């Protein structure tokens, strides 16, 4: 069965009333859960796994795919409205999405996130349908040296989110990397900087760190001025709440680029949607006609990461279905579900269980449509939430943050960490230190460290291994070029930033 035949067969199987019903239920649940910080897609799918295993394999997996997609979209809602990233992949959306909300353009940001998710999610699924076998071959060649090189490159890209001061961006990045080393060292079992706190053995909880730095830090900045006026202005007309044709036209290149980048990065196990979203953001900034708007409420700055975040889902299915390699926590739970159904992911899955695999892929197309239909009418409703007086909104944000962080591990310690990181986020803003590089470096740090140490183990501590393999050599070359551009490129501009703007 070729891809087109398989897809048509899959669509035929997916479009049954039962499957469509559970697809809609999955999308709705996923969106609701995505809005709440803390309860991410892996937790929701895991909670619903016993329920889903009662269905036929195709139906259960279709519902889980709906949750996966829905949660990704839902995550953007709180990022845009409240600056609360429910997941690491939503961090980049906060940068411009929240700025747009502050300018009274929350509806446009939410709308473009929905449209971008639809366009790129569809691109990702098309990629999954037609490129899965070829893409899987490339992914197989990604060993520790390639990952190390990719992470070094990604970390250098993080600096581009630094804003005016590169020096402060580097400081934030290194603090984030250092924080990511706290916990048990996976290679030796040694405890690093845990202070004998058992709660820190697994490392600092990401949600506590990101919600503290972004949401609590932002609240503390916003309440400095005791003003009676609303923090955000929300237009009254529904037409003004949705993206205009011009907005969509402006964002189309970012959406398409995000879709492609997200899919390609999604194929790499471990790289994940966080890397996809911010690489796509950087590319959008570099290729935009109005790069100066990025960080200040650029609609492309929302479209690109949201597109990449959703298209990554299609990419992540490639190693999962073709090799049984889960690229993320959600992938691992989905893998568990496949195994529970008696399906062994691998190259033969497409041949032996075509009746299950193709309906799942087909349902991803349908899930994208369902999400767009469900979410666009909700945009004005969500945006109107910002009409709430800030005096009511900020205690609500603080309480949601507490609940969200607590619900991840049911840990009061994590709530304490939220409070500490809230203060750190506030201090960073007061001192004009950008928080995004810290949070992204915190996510990338463990992947980078593992890959670097594995590579050095493989090569008997010889760094030459990075140059001996073509993919890693290319990535290292790109990283060096990027470093040179940052240091010497564009004439004096960058050096001026380091030496003078910092000063």
């Amino acid at each position: 069965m070729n891809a087109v035949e398989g897809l048509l067969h899959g669509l035929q199987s997916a479009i049954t009333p039962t499957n469509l019903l559970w697809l809609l239920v999955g999308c709705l649940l996923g969106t609701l859960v995505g809005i709440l910080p803390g309860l991410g897609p892996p937790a929701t799918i895991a909670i619903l796994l016993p329920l889903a295993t009662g269905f036929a394999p195709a139906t259960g997996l279709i519902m889980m795919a709906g949750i996966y997609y829905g949660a990704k979209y839902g995550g953007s809602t709180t990022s845009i409205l409240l600056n609360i990233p429910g997941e690491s992949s939503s961090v980049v959306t906060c940068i411009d999405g929240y700025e747009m909300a502050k300018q009274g353009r929350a509806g446009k940001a939410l709308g473009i996130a929905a449209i971008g998710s639809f366009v790129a999610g569809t691109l990702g699924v098309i990629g999954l349908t037609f490129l899965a076998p070829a893409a899987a071959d490339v992914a197989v060649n990604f060993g520790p040296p390639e990952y190390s090189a990719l992470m070094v490159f990604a970390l250098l890209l993080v600096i581009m989110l630094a804003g005016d001061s590169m020096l402060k961006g580097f400081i934030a990045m290194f603090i984030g990397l250092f924080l990511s080393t706290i916990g048990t060292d996976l290679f030796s079992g040694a405890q690093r900087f845990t202070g004998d706190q058992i709660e820190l053995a697994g490392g600092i909880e990401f949600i506590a760190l990101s919600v503290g730095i972004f949401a609590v830090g932002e609240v503390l900045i916003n309440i400095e001025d005791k003003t009676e006026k609303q923090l955000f202005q929300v237009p009254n007309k529904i037409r003004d709440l949705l993206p205009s044709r011009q907005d969509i036209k402006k964002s189309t290149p970012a959406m398409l680029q995000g879709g492609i980048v997200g899919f390609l990065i999604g194929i790499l196990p471990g790289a994940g949607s966080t890397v996809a979203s911010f690489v796509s953001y950087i590319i959008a900034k570099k290729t935009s006609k109005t790069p100066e708007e990025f960080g200040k409420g650029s609609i492309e700055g929302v479209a690109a990461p949201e597109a990449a975040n959703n298209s990554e889902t299609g990419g992540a299915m490639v190693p999962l279905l073709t090799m049984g390699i889960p690229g993320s926590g959600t992938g691992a739970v989905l893998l568990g579900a496949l195994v529970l159904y008696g399906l062994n992911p691998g190259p033969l899955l497409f041949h032996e269980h075509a009746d299950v695999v193709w309906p799942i892929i087909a349902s991803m197309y349908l899930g994208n449509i369902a999400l767009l239909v469900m979410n666009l009418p909700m945009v004005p409703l969500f945006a109107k939430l910002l009409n709430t007086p800030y005096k009511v909104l900020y205690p609500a944000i603080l309480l949601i943050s507490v609940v969200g962080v607590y619900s991840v591990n049911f840990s009061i310690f994590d709530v304490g960490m939220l409070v500490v990181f809230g203060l750190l986020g506030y201090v960073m803003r007061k001192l004009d230190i950008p928080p995004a590089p810290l949070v992204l470096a915190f996510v990338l740090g463990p992947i980078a460290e593992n890959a670097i140490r594995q590579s050095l183990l493989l090569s008997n501590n010889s760094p030459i291994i990075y140059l001996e393999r073509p993919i890693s050599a290319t990535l290292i070359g790109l990283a060096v070029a990027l470093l040179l551009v940052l240091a010497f490129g564009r004439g004096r501009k960058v050096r001026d930033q380091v030496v003078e703007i910092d000063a």
Partner: protein
Amino acid sequence: MEQEIVRRPDEDTPDEDAAEELAAEPSPADGDQNRDARLTRRVHVVLGLVIAALGAWLLYKSRTELEFRGPNNEPGPGYLPVLLTICLIALGLALSAVWLWGPKARRGEAPTLSLSPQGIGRALLVWLALLVCAFLIEPLGFLAAGEVLVVLVIVVIERIRSIPLIIALLLLPPAMYLLFDTLLEVQLPGGTLWY
């Protein structure tokens, strides 16, 4: 000011002199700007030194508590922390240096930080309210700790008089409890004091 004290009150002052005097005298706004610039510069120099000192302390901990190399000479658990803390020290010192000797910092042309004591005080008050709430969650449970946070906001921080706003705020914790604990079955802390 000194000139005014020296000058006799009956002495006529030509208009040009007065204009020159005004131009030479710094306006209050200029004074504020200079003060902010000096404060920003000082804060950044201290910040750089604090980062460097923190980095040095963490480097010491990494070197003394964690092995830099494993048994087969592979990178050990202290490998990355040592490299990272060295970079942090260097970056902290660089930050201090550019704010001490950087041309814009010396000329006072660098962007200034907004460090108003009233604003910071208000933010810290909210942070303290959150801290109190976090401390009370375990013994009192989410509902009571949430109400403490809300009451602190109503009474101490915002001094809200509007009854609808007060009711809306007081209903926040039970509404969240209903949504998370009852509907979504995310078990929130009930309070060790009561159970």
